[in-house]
């Protein structure tokens, strides 16, 4: 299990940020290489993320679901379950968003298996940290 904490800034009010992170059609494409394949409910979607590794790339497909939503505290938990296309790897995560005026924080608890994990936890942490930092940059204009 890898746990990481990040923050992000949007410069927009709390209500705007709260609606934005709960809108999976807007949120998922903020992950580099991420796209919604199909909305399965107002709070869930089938999605994929394509991670470029130089010449090669790995694609993870799975589901993203809002499993907890506290409208008063502006706190939501999104559960990501995915599997490497054509491989044996998995990338699962619980992502906790806490929203406030101007931005918010993200706590990520992830479990990665397969080829990426075989490179060691240090590599997983570095790549995941890079992915989430890139995500927070894109959230600035969500």
């Amino acid at each position, binding site marked *: 299990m890898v746990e990481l904490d990040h923050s992000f800034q949007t410069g927009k009010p709390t209500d705007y940020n709260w609606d934005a992170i709960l809108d999976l059609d807007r949120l998922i494409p903020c992950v580099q290489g991420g796209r919604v394949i199909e909305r399965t409910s107002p709070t869930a979607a089938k999605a994929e993320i394509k991670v*470029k*590794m130089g010449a090669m790339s790995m694609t993870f497909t799975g589901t993203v679901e809002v499993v907890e939503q506290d409208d008063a505290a502006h706190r939501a938990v999104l559960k990501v379950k995915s599997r490497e296309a054509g491989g044996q790897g998995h990338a699962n995560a619980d992502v906790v968003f806490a929203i406030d005026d101007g931005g918010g924080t993200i706590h990520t608890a992830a479990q990665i298996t397969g*080829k990426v994990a075989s490179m060691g936890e*240090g*590599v997983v942490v570095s*790549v995941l940290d890079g992915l989430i930092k890139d995500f927070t940059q894109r959230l600035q204009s969500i």
Partner: protein
Amino acid sequence: MPIPPGSYTLGPGDGTLLVRTGRTGAASKAGHDLVIEVTSWRATLELPGGAAERSVSLTADSRSLRVREGSGGMQSLDDDDKANIAQTIDDEVLKGAAIEFRSSSVEAGPDGTGLRVQGDLDLAGARRPVAFHLDAGADGRLTGSARIDQTDWGMKPYSALFGTLKVANEVEVAIDATLPAPRPDTEPTA
């Protein structure tokens, strides 16, 4: 051994011009060390006898780089991967800019063997000095290599995986060729 005086022209038919790249970054294990062949190039060695000025020059087509080997990585490179890398080099690294080297100084190497060459290299739209040694074997084999720091030419080393996998800044450019016969019109007669 000393290279006999004369004018020589070399190209892919005489040997190989290779670029070797390494990798760095936290996720460097995911990438590959590459051996890339420049498939279109032309080098000239003007080596008149006596005290006349010697010169070495090389031009290469930056769109002619082809990946020959990739070592390391989580899985081996297939032909599509190699083609993708060549395309990335064209689109994002060299961008079709001219590659040209012209010597400013060519001296005999230590003990009179080979050549010590200094000059300017045009690469990715910038011109910077570079120096290297050319060795000549008794069998006519000509070898030499230069180390290039990409950032010296204003290039940003390619990176992926959110910056955790990068091509090392320093790349090696190496020539390994068989010295052809000097051009007949320039062969010394006395």
